[in-house]
Every structure is written in C-alpha cells, then in structure tokens.
C-alpha cells in the first residue's frame, strides 16, 4: 500500500491520519519530534481498527527520515493562531520550519506530492516551492478547499438542502481577502443566484470570510482542525486513487490571470501527479484586481522573509 506521511502530530496531523484510516486508502506515517507523541496517537487509532475495520496501517515516528519514499507528504507542523491573531502573524515563526523541512522532503520523497497545511498557507506554499525545487504541480496548499467547504455548509444550511449537492468555489488568498464566487456556486447544477437573494448571498460570503476566525475564538486554545484534516484526507484520496477530482487548492501560479510566482488558490484537477490541470473561471475586473493584490501581498511576505532569513527550527509538534 502507498503511504501518506504527515509531518506534525498535532490536531490537524493526527485527525488527518484518522480520516485517512476511515477511508482505508493508504498507510499513514505520523512524524513528530516530540518523543512518543505520534506513536501514541496512531496506536490509539489502530486500537479502534477491529471495530472500524481499518484495512491500512497507521504508525508514528520521531524521525523525519522515515518519510522516505512516501507518495504524499502533508506538512501539518508549526505554530497555530490564538484568538485575535491573523494567519499572516504566523509567517515568521513558521517560515523557519518550512525552510528546514523543504530540502529534506525533496531529498527523502522526491516523487511525492506535498500538501502544505501550515498557516499562512499561501505564503508557505510559495516558500516551500522555492526552497524544495519540486515542480509546482506537486506542491499544494490547503487554502480554498477549506473556504469552499465552509461556504458549502453555509449555503446548505440557508437553503435546507444536503451539503453534498452544493458545490462552491472560493479562490485567492486563504485570508480575509479570499474571493468567493457565488455565481459559480451551485446546487445540483442550479447557480446560487437563482436560489437565494443577493443580500443573503452577501451575508453568507461574509460569514465564510470569518468562519476560520470564529472557530479560533470559540475553541480558545486550538484553531480549526476537523475540516482541515478532512480536506487533507480527500486530497490524499484523489491523488492516491488518481480520481482527478476538482478542489480549490493553493498552487504556485504560472501566468494564470497574469500572476506568476506566488501561490494562491484556484480550482485544480487533483490526480496521481498532483495538480493535473488548473482551471481558470472567468473573473470580473474587480475580482482580478483583488487576486493580483493578494499575489503582491504573498510576494512581499516571502521576499521580506528572504532578506531577513535565518536558520529555522526543526519539525515542530505544534497543534
């Protein structure tokens, strides 16, 4: 069986292992520098295997070198937000981690597809791409998939329909400048504007923008992790099974909407080679302007970091 390695044994990492186990898709290796932590968590999950009928093996390790040969590597390590913090505030501390991990992952699992789940995801996906030298198709960030799944939930709640039949696209930066595209949101193919009044759509879009902040505020000591780890499992499934499913993910842009070099979310076809194809829905001039402005912010963050860069920390066990 192929293997997904998850770096960082906190809530996102461990629950991604859990969701992958439930799907029974691949083996999982959870790596954390904190002695015993990842082995303990994976053992806990494996002890449910007879009841939940897991077919795959989940293991833990304290050593990054054990990720060798993985098909998929998830980066779920790093510091998380406290209430009141913006995702961007985490850049300096987590950039060190990415600088440390990127060359090692490129060396140990050169054929892998890497999923960056550490915040701020777009800047760190850009940084990982630069530092690893891996092709852009195999470096993705957990961005728009989270915003779009939150938007789907809110649309389904508003219309009292099943979440599964709601599709939604959120592109751009995984931050307060995310771009929700209600006209590309649909329920069994019926575009949202046919089903919901403009002011209700605006309210839902606004709620989506702050949905991640709300979880941080309510949970106080943790940020959201169920939705992110479920999203990781879906991406891993689509890569491993070569499903070519479409998810908005953060990817280093190569001319899309005139942007090159920064990672931002766009709907992408995800298969065994990572991103098989990037889709570029038609945007209004205003949406394009927001998109380009978000790219400039990413560029500024990553370039600023390059100037003041110093050796980063090791793979962290943050949750």
């Amino acid at each position, binding site marked *: 069986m192929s293997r997904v390695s998850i770096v960082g044994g906190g809530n996102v990492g461990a629950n991604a292992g859990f969701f992958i186990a439930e799907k029974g898709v691949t083996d999982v290796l959870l790596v954390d520098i904190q002695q015993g932590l990842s082995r303990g968590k994976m053992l806990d999950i494996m002890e449910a295997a007879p009841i939940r009928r897991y077919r795959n093996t989940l293991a833990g390790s304290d050593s990054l070198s054990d990720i060798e040969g993985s098909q998929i590597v998830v980066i779920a390590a790093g510091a998380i937000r406290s209430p009141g913090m913006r995702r961007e505030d985490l850049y300096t501390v987590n950039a060190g981690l990415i600088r440390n991990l990127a060359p090692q992952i490129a060396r140990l699992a050169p054929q892998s597809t890497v999923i960056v789940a550490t915040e701020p995801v777009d800047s760190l996906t850009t940084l990982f791409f630069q530092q690893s030298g891996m092709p852009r198709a195999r470096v993705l960030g957990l961005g728009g998939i989270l915003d779009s799944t939150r938007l789907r939930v809110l649309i389904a709640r508003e219309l009292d329909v*099943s979440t599964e039949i709601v599709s939604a*696209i959120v592109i751009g930066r995984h931050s307060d400048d995310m771009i929700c595209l209600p006209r*590309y949101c*649909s329920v*069994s193919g*019926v575009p949202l504007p046919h089903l919901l009044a403009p002011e209700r759509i605006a309210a839902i879009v606004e709620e989506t923008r702050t949905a991640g902040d709300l979880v941080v505020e309510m949970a106080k000591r943790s940020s959201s992790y169920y939705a992110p780890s479920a999203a990781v499992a879906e991406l891993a499934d689509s890569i491993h099974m070569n499903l070519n499913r*479409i998810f908005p993910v953060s990817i280093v842009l190569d001319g899309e909407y005139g942007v090159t070099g920064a990672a931002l979310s766009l709907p992408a*076809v995800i298969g065994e080679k990572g991103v098989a194809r990037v*889709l570029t829905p038609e945007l209004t001039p205003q949406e394009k302007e927001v998109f380009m402005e978000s790219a400039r912010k990413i560029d500024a963050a990553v370039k600023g970091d390059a100037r003041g860069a110093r050796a980063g920390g090791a793979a962290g066990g943050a949750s």
Partner: protein
Amino acid sequence: MKVAVIGAGNVGAKAVYYIAEKNIADIVMVDVVDGLARAKALDFLHAAPVRGYEGKIRGSTDFAEVEGSDVVVMTAGIARKPGMDRMDLLKTNVGIARQAAREIARRAPNAVVIVVTNPLDVIAMVMLRETGFALRKVVGMAGVLDSTRFRYFIAEKLGIWPGDVQAMVLGGHGDEMVPLTGYTSVGGIPIGQLLDPASIEALVTRTRTGGAEIVSLLKSGSAFYAPGASVAKMVEAVIKNEKRLFPASAFLRGEYGFSDIYLGVPVIMGRNGVERIVELPLTEAERSALEASARAVKKGLDELAGIQEG
C-alpha cells in the same frame, strides 16, 4: 425504516442491491412470478456475511409484505418488445400499476412512492389517482438517470471525476429530455467555459440516446445498473431526509406553466417525498422543448383516459 420494491426484474433487483449496500433500511421485494423475488432475496442474503448487510431482505409473491413500508419503489411492468403495440404495453402496465396502487394505499398509507415503470409520467398519474395519496408522495424516477448519464459523458470527455459534474435535465425521459446546459457545471464552472458548443451538443445527443446505446450493445435487454443506482439515490434521500435537489417527475399545479400532469422538473426530495418544486428561468429553446415534452405526456394521458372508458 422499510423499503418495498415491487417487481423483481433487473431494475428492481439492482435497486435492491444498491439500497442494501447503503445499509439504510429493511427491504422487501414483491413479484407476482412465483419464487422469483424469494430467489433473488435469498441470493442477496447469501452475500450478507461478506458484505456486512445490516437490514433484513425478503422476497415474496404476497403484497401483504408491503405492510408499513416508508418507501415503495414501483418497477413492475412489461418492457416494450420490438413489434409490440404501444397501447398494449400501456394497458398491461396500467393494469399492473392499479393493482399495486390499491395494495400500497391499504398496506403502506404513509409511504412515498417512486415510480419507475414506463411510460413513467402516465404510470405516476395512475399511481397518484389510485392510491389517493398526497401529491408530493408520488414521484417518478427518470431525470436522475438522464442527468447521471449526462454527467458521466461530460466527466469522460474532460477526464475528471464524475462526482464533480453537476447537471440538470427537465422534461420526459430519453428522447424527450431537455438538458439545461446553462445549469450544468464542472466543479462549479459552467460547462460553456470548458467545452465548445459542438462538443456539448454531441454529449447531449449521446445522453438522449443513452438508453438505446445500451440496448443496442446488449442485443437483448436494457440498462439496469444506472437505473437501479438512480432509484437507490432517491430512496436514500427520502429515508435520510436529505433534501437533495433532483430532477424528477412531479405532479405540477402551475409550475413551469403546466397543470395536472407529471413532468420532469427539479425537486427537493426529503422525508415527505417532493418537499418543493424548484422553478428555474428557462431560455426560449428550453421552454419550447419542455412544451413538446409536456405535449407527449398529455397524449399519454389521453390514451389513459381511453383505457378507463373501455
């Protein structure tokens, strides 16, 4: 929860299979052919240890088994064979539907009835009248099948996962279906941004003749996997009260400008059957295609009136 499937032919049995795999209800199959439903139920039960089925599965010739069902799927009826007169088919299937309807009304008065037997829009009307059920409780399955075929063909063309394609179709089944390409999207992106009009038209044509394509390949018999899966999806929406938006044949009272007929329209399916009919703005071409579809259904209803008098 309990689901009854009337008719243990290929579509009925395959619907039972897909429902059984979902582990959402006890299932009973009823067929007038002696031993057929029992044999197929037994075959399913033999697979239960391997597949881990949780519900009971029974087969019988006795309509008493329908007792207390939450959902009844009507698949019984004869299929049209080459050379068979249309009216003969109609008379036979109307007769079968009437008998089933009386039994359903008596034994499962709270059930949602999903009609699959052809001619679908006419048999649904027979079922509605003979059961005396509320309008929302009797619905026909055709649009889910047409749209799943359309979705598959689009996914195949673009090389992407079929589950990411959403599509809506209106009107009658097969030749009379009205695909709404403006309401068809891939990962939310309208199909018109990904395929040129000629390619879309080719996929529409293939969808219209999707059933015939299978028939011509099989030589004898017709499709039953996709129809069975489509039935199971609708059953699940009712059992789990999912409020899914499906294209389905529903009784219209002015929606889309039609009254007193069954016609394929977008509906929200839940515990009460058709929870709501969704009205969408249509283009002129779509509207006239839908009118043609409605005329065909009306013609069928006129024929039905002829049977009732005779």
